[in-house]
């Protein structure tokens, strides 16, 4: 009895381990549970155009911060004859180009390849506390204290924290009849949305609310965008919230990509004129698994020590190898629950593996052909009075010979499939032939038929389990599913009920006993 509990505990632990690894991989690493999930890859190209003035030129472009939901897979900087480096200012990265002498129109490109992945959660840059001092340079720094105080007092009255404060303020500025103060500010300072952003920044700073300037790109909109959408990021404790200057709070999960974060300017140029920037967004759909692997390549040791790090050829071998336990499970189920007889316990699995390579019908045809020719040859070899090892080796050579001839012959006939015959495990075939002929001698052709067809049926079931795309995807990307298979096999190993075949075997017998009673 105790061993029975042990088995349940072991099986439970195996399943639990497998499930927790799988949950981690799905939730944290973002490897999708099913192979057909997709991720979108955005290529964001920023193009900076300017005209050289014959003097030394310097161009500095603010680069996007790491942000949840978007993983930067690749960056490409293209600029002819410019010196290029990545600089860091105020915790933010900038791409900087410089050249001693520039004449005429020029283009510089900086391209990002970004994968949209809801599971990607990088560490975010810390918000810096603003002091109004830093706004001295702004034209609107002289925004009158009274006006500011009035607006802040009003917003405070109608809000409970930084987020609702901002939301109220934005709503107020977008009212049809926002009142005299707002109308004055809008008229006096906020001629365009960039200026409006500054107005909000100053107001929030005066209200002692942590906030950040944001310039965002819309990924779902038209391809070419000439400017970033000014937004605000407001902090309340650990929370962060994006605000559109017109619509108020917006959901970050929308297709917004933050390019500009913080106080720096998007583009700073020296020694050039007519500088312009425009963004060009294109999208491409990727299998999610590929995206997850790219994203977590360095991040997770679970992936670093997984099959994915092997060379592609080895990966393909393991892809097949990982299917063997599935085949074994099929054998166990069919033998213990159905009661099919097979010749050799795992011969069907090897057969099924061969079928995976040759395709089912050609595989079966070739198996039957090789085994029957083999049986004939083996019947003749029996007369030569050879020792067992020598005889099996002889059969093996004959099997190789048959394979070669079947391949050549059917190739001449135009049947390409036959060349894959080499995927059959030859030693197994030779042994099968040997076993079958002994069986023939000892138990007669009927038993050969029973065990031979039993093996084939099990092999065909195993084949269908092994070519199942979902199972294949699961075992390859989540090898821990094999622990679940193991748990099932361990549990099934304790099954002491009747087999399907016994319900037939004992039927007449059971009826007789019942009739007697």
């Amino acid at each position, binding site marked *: 009895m105790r061993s029975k509990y042990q088995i349940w505990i072991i099986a439970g632990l195996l399943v639990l381990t497998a499930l927790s690894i799988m949950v981690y991989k799905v939730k944290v690493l973002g490897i999708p549970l099913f192979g057909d999930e997709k991720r979108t890859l955005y290529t964001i190209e920023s193009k900076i155009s300017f005209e050289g003035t014959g003097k030394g030129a310097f161009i500095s472009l603010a680069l996007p911060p790491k942000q949840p939901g978007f993983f930067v897979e690749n960056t490409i900087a293209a600029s002819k004859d410019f010196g290029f480096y990545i600089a860091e200012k105020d915790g933010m990265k900038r791409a900087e180009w410089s050249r001693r002498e520039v004449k005429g129109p020029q283009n510089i490109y900086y391209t990002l390849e970004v994968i949209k992945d809801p599971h990607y959660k990088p560490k975010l840059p810390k918000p810096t506390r603003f002091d109004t001092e830093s706004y001295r340079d702004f034209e609107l720094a002289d925004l009158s204290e009274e006006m500011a105080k009035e607006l802040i007092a009003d917003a405070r009255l109608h809000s409970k924290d930084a987020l609702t404060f901002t939301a109220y303020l934005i709503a107020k500025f977008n009212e049809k009849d926002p009142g005299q103060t707002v109308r004055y500010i809008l008229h006096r300072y906020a001629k365009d949305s960039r200026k409006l952003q500054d107005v909000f920044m100053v107001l929030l700073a005066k209200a002692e609310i942590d906030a950040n300037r944001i310039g965002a790109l819309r990924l779902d909109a038209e391809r070419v965008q000439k400017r970033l959408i000014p937004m605000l990021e407001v902090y309340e404790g650990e929370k962060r919230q994006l605000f559109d200057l017109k619509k108020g709070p917006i959901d970050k999960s929308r297709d917004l990509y933050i390019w500009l974060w913080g106080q720096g300017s998007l583009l700073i140029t020296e020694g050039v004129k007519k500088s312009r920037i425009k963004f060009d967004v294109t999208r491409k759909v990727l299998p999610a698994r590929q995206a997850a692997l790219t994203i977590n390549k360095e991040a997770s040791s679970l992936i670093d020590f997984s099959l994915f790090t092997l060379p592609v050829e080895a990966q393909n071998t393991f892809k097949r190898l990982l299917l063997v336990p599935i085949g074994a499970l099929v054998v166990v189920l069919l033998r*213990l629950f159905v*009661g099919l007889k097979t010749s050799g316990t795992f011969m069907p699995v090897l057969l099924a593996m061969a079928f995976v390579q040759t395709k089912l019908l050609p595989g079966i045809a070739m198996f039957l052909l090789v085994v029957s020719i083999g049986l004939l040859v083996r019947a003749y070899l029996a007369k030569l*009075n050879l*020792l*067992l*090892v020598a005889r099996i080796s002889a059969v093996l050579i004959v099997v190789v010979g048959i394979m070669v001839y079947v391949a050549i012959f059917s190739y001449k006939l135009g049947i390409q499939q036959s060349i894959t015959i080499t995927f059959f495990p030859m030693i197994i075939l030779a042994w099968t032939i040997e076993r079958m002929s*002994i069986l023939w001698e*000892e*138990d*007669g052709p009927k038993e050969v038929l029973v065990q031979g067809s039993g093996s084939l049926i099990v092999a065909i079931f195993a084949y269908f389990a092994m070519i199942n795309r979902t199972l294949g995807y699961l075992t390859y990307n989540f090898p821990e599913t094999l622990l679940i298979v193991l748990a099932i096999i361990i549990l099934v*190993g*304790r*099954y*002491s*009920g*009747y*087999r399907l075949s*016994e*319900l*037939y*075997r*004992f*039927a*007449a*017998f*059971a*009826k*007789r*006993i*019942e009739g*007697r009673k």
Partner: protein
Amino acid sequence: MEWVRPSVLKKLGILGMNGRNVDYIGRYNDRRLYPLVDNKLKTKELALRHGLRVPDLLGSIGSQMEVKKIHEHIPEGEGFVIKPAQGSGGKGILVILSHDGERFTKPSGEVIDLAELKRHVSNTLSGLYSLGGKDDVAVFERLIEFDNVFDGFSYEGVPDVRVIVYRGYPVMAMMRLSTAASDGKANLHQGAVGVGIDIVTGHAINAVQYDRPVTHHPDTAKDLHSLKVPHWEEILSIAAGAYDMTGLGYLGVDVVLDKKRGPMLLELNARPGLAIQIANGEGMLKRFQVIDEVADTPKSPEKRIAYSREKFGK
């Protein structure tokens, strides 16, 4: 096709293959004890030490080099049997009824020459007939002259009695009669007839071939219900003694009856089949439960036999 519901089988106490493997073999047969029964040479030595009669050992061949000296093990002018020491399911057993040193006659009348005999031995040594294909030893035994009472009950072969011994108690018995279909072999799955035998009296109860009921021997037309096994007490005591000898709790004991020497232990089986239930027209599980009530206190073989006969009478 005729089918039966699992609940019916359960109600009738019929033991299935998985139940046998998990609940009985797995629980009562310690793997370490298997070599005692899987190796016929070891079984023989053990039986002799415990004072159980066995067929005479003529000799054994353990290496291909010795195959040349096969003559040393063949009794002059007498029949003999060659068995793989670790064979299973009756595979590789070669019975020779008579010979002149060159030509050997099988029960079927087929004659083979010395070369073929040697090849059989050589195959046996290579492990062709043994469990898992490991190297084996060929055992030569004196042919059993089977008792006249079985005349007409068996066709070209030695009939034997299979007793299932559960935790030392004989629970069920059957006689296995070879037929033309079974090629002189006493294995039910090869087509031998199984006759259920009453544990109390040794009388036939019921007979089956290929799991279906028969009343007469298919080759000799003898009425199978008239079968009565002689020396029945002795057979039961060999069976019960085999438990004390091996310690296996779920054991098949095969006994043959020699005309002159009486019952002899032929071989033991740690994984006896289920067809015995069909031959007896009864499931085994209920009998196991009867034994389970008393088996925890050790008793002498005689007491165990008496208990079985008291409980399992027809």
